[in-house]
Every structure is written in structure tokens, then in C-alpha cells.
């Protein structure tokens, strides 16, 4: 009795909501962007380039290690602070953390030529699965608006 038992479908948006649920203070903001997944994700996954346009607090991001979908990067905030980010970047999924930051982005095609993108993140309570709960949702909305604008 195996092989044909039904399995539940857990897409990246679902996984994203789950992961964010484990981060105290996190807020997930979702938005449909009227552009194909490939176009949207090309902008998100360009860590050293257009990623900085979406997350303007991040400047001069440099990837220092990439192994499969594991990524380590050094980023500078606009206030000059350095962050060593590590995590996973793969099609439809980006989850990075440093001691003081968490950045999460997930995207799935909506089946109608558009893409649903979810974002979360902000200032991390050092070493904990928690965000400082100030302006978290607003920041995610702004990032999504920038991404939508970049997609034309």
C-alpha cells in the first residue's frame, strides 16, 4: 500500500508563512505583481545588483560564498554597518539572516501570467528568531512596491 497515496501540496508561499510564524514579530506581506515569475525572480536573486534596489537599506552586497543554494554575503547598510548574511537562495525562495537582520522573500507564479510575492524581515533581535516589531509591515510593503515598479 504505497506509491499512490495522495500527498498535500505545500508550495513556497505556504512554507514561507510557516517559517515566518516561527519568527516572533514577523509580518508577512503578499502582493501580486503583473510580471512573469522569471522576470520577478531575476531581480530578486541578483543579490549583488537589483536586490539592493528592492531592499534599499542594503548597499554594496557582495556574495562571498555560494554552495548550491546556500549563500553567504556581506552587506552594508546605508548607515554604514556591515552584516554577514547567510541562508538559502533558490528559485522562488530567499531566506537570509545575520546577527542583526532577517530578510525573507518567496514567490510563486499565479497561473495567470503574474507572480505572487511574499516578504518579511527586519531588524533581528540578536541571535533570536525574533524581529524588533517596529515598522516591519511597512518596510515589506515598500520593498514590494519597489519590486513591482522595477518589473514595470
Amino acid at each position, binding site marked *: *500500500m*504505497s506509491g*499512490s*497515496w*495522495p*500527498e*498535500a*501540496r*505545500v*508550495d513556497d508561499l*505556504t*512554507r514561507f*508563512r*510557516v*517559517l515566518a*510564524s*516561527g*519568527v516572533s514579530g514577523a509580518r508577512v506581506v503578499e502582493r501580486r505583481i503583473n510580471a512573469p515569475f522569471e522576470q520577478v525572480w531575476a531581480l530578486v536573486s541578483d543579490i549583488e545588483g537589483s536586490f539592493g534596489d528592492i531592499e534599499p537599506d542594503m548597499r554594496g552586497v557582495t556574495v562571498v560564498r555560494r554552495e548550491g543554494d546556500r549563500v553567504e554575503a556581506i552587506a552594508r547598510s546605508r548607515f554604514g554597518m556591515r552584516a554577514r548574511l*547567510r*541562508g*538559502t537562495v533558490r528559485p522562488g525562495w530567499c*531566506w537570509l*539572516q545575520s546577527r542583526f537582520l*532577517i530578510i525573507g522573500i518567496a514567490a510563486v507564479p499565479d497561473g495567470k501570467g503574474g507572480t505572487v510575492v511574499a516578504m518579511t524581515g527586519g531588524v533581528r533581535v540578536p*541571535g*533570536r*528568531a*525574533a524581529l524588533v516589531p517596529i515598522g516591519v509591515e511597512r518596510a515589506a510593503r515598500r520593498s514590494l512596491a519597489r519590486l513591482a515598479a522595477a518589473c514595470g
Partner: protein
Amino acid sequence: MTTDPALAALVRAAQGGDTVAMNELLDRLAPFVSRICGPIALGQGADAAQEALIAVFTSLRGLRKPEAVYGWVRQIAVREAVRVARQDRRAVPDELSELPAPGDPQLGTDIADVLARLSPEHRAILMLRDRDGMDERSAAAILGVTTGTAKSRLHRARQYFRKEWNA
């Protein structure tokens, strides 16, 4: 599955607030939870899996034995899947329908259709005992019922399934 030291270390890191470890743990647990929630919650499987995984990640710090994470997750997923399936009354038949016995060669492509004729509780016991090979006592503990209840549910599920299949 319960004695992997690397997995236990991953759980401890996740419990300690490392969100990258949480991400990696989610990669491991999501397919496991999908396989549990699918047969029990059927059309509501995705909702059940999300609810179960949220329950797991919001209560992860309370898990005292990281090496037993799969057993802990299984119990949460089974109960959540039954709860979600119960909420969707269309998915809960008043009467049991029928299932074939384990190993029955006729069991194949239409198992989802046959499962849909069972109650969520019967789907759960059938999955735990016949697909996952779990013993009676363990399956009963996961479902929160006595071994007698688990035994009678399984008996009825198998009996109805076989009868229907051969009709």
C-alpha cells in the same frame, strides 16, 4: 529516522533561534507532513499541512527530545489533519465506505477516491497502520484513543474497503 545526530543538532539550532536552521528543518519536515496530511485531509490537505507546520514551528522550543522530532511532528500533523478534515463536513461521510486489505494488488491509482469515502479518523488509522507499518499501540497513542478503539477502527476500515472494492 529518530536517531540522526545531525537532525537533532539542527533542531537544537532552530530551537536556539537560528532561522537558517529553521529553514533547513522546514525543508526536511514539509514533505513528511505533506505525506501525512494528504491521505487524511484530502482536498484540505494543503490547509492541514500549513496548520500543522505552523503548530510545529510555533511550539518548537517546547520539544524536549530533539532526536524524537519526527514522532512529535507526526502526532501534530495527524491530529491537525483530522481536525481540518472534520471542519470540512463535505469531506466527512456519515457512514464508512470500503477499503481493501494491506498489500491487496488491486490497491493502486484510485486510492484517493476510496479514502474519500472514509471518515478522517479511519483514513488516519489506515495510513498509520498499513502504509507506515506502525504498531497498534503507537498508532493509538498518536490518535489519542485506546488500542481497542484503534483496532476496531482499522478492522472496519479494511473490511469496508475490501467489500466496496470487490462489489
